[in-house]
């Protein structure tokens, strides 16, 4: 009996030692550094650089995600970003973590120029260098570069920076998806509903005028 046991152990030991050596060899021989995934994750983040995720900027959050951080902490990205991340990482999308704030309409910062004292605080705060101005001169936000992170609002000693919601205009307008009736529970569609279903952008207002 004991010989049998010893043979068994010896065989397994032999196998394991060989395999272990092989793996040890491979681990050293085929070592790689760096992770391309971070770049891919970073590419999906909105680059607002607002820090709401709890990381100083999008890239740090991308790195954190790569290390297992939850993907639902970026309010500017909102659902779209979460879905894209879920898709990339092949995990289930989760709803936005409320602790990090809610998704908001896109905004830009606008400085009320005559109140600005030129303290340059906002320049220091802006993560993308979208504010122009020299010390003691009034400052301006380059609208096209502003990410709407609102990081400049708080440091301003005279509170002269406003976050303005970007309103859609006729050139940025896009068609809304049709209103799908399917969602209305327990209701038989009537003739009037028929129009609502295929209605266009201003569903709400026009619906009101119709019904």
């Amino acid at each position, binding site marked *: 009996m004991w010989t049998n046991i010893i043979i068994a152990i010896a065989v397994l030991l032999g196998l*394991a030692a060989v*395999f*272990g050596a092989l*793996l*040890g060899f*491979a*681990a050293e021989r085929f070592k790689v550094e760096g992770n391309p995934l971070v770049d891919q994750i970073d590419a999906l983040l909105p680059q607002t*650089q*607002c*820090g*709401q*995720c*709890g*990381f*100083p*900027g999008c890239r740090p959050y991308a790195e954190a995600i790569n290390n297992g951080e939850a993907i639902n*902490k970026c*309010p500017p990205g909102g659902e779209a970003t979460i879905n894209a991340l879920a898709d990339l990482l092949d995990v289930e999308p989760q709803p936005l973590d*409320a*602790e*990090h*704030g*809610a998704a908001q309409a896109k905004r830009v910062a606008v400085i009320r120029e005559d109140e600005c004292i030129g303290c340059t605080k906002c320049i*220091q*705060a*802006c*993560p993308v260098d979208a504010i122009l101005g020299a010390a003691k001169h009034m400052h301006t936000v380059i609208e096209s570069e502003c990410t709407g*992170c609102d*990081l400049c609002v*708080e*440091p301003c000693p005279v509170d002269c920076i406003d976050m303005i919601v970007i309103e859609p205009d006729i050139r940025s307008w896009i068609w809304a998806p049709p209103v799908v009736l399917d969602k209305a529970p327990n209701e038989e569609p009537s003739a009037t509903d028929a129009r609502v279903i295929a209605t266009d952008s201003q569903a709400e207002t026009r619906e009101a005028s119709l019904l």
Partner: protein
Amino acid sequence: MATKTSREIIRDGLWSNNPALVQVLGLCPLLAVTSTVVNALGLGLATLLVLMGSNLAVSLIRNFVNESVRLPAFVMIIASFVTCAELLMQAYTYELYQILGIFIPLIVTNCAILGRADAFASRNPPGLALLDGAMMGLGFLAVLVVLGAMRELIGQGTLFADMHLLLGPVAAEWTLRPFADYPNMLFMMLPPGAFMGLGLLIALKNVIDSRIEEKRKAAQVETVSAGSKRVRVTGSLS
């Protein structure tokens, strides 16, 4: 990762992170051997024992494993437990062993076990690991048995048939036949029934969860303060 309290571990294993219903792991035995309660119970018990053992063992050695051989080492631990279980079943419940067949050695590759070893046991102290193993195992066992009962009942109109294979002659008379003259719904005994049965159980759990969630929502007001986790990206506020 914050360590979990034992309460959380219990809830996770049995319900909210149930290996079968939520993680959807360990499916092969889950579906293959659940045509009757007795098969399900047999395999479930074996899995439970292995899971506890391997979790404990992995947790004990968690600080001594070299990264490059981590996976093989865990797998070997699991395999040794499984082989022991297999040998014991062969010795003491031979008929059941024959019915369960290849699925006993396949406990080794039950993803739930390696998953627990890697995700939990290798990062937690032995006590918690053992508890986790037990709870995950019980959760798995419960699903196995429920699915087994469901398939047995719908499929051949009996419950607890052949329990003597596992529990000895006392159990021989336990068979229930709730419907007289039942036309066997063979589909439930075959692979499609297994899949759909589990699908149904998962859906059932979802329904229950959403009910609970609704209740909780109704009873509770949101307390998180939005945006409280924000950090400064640029400089400090001085």
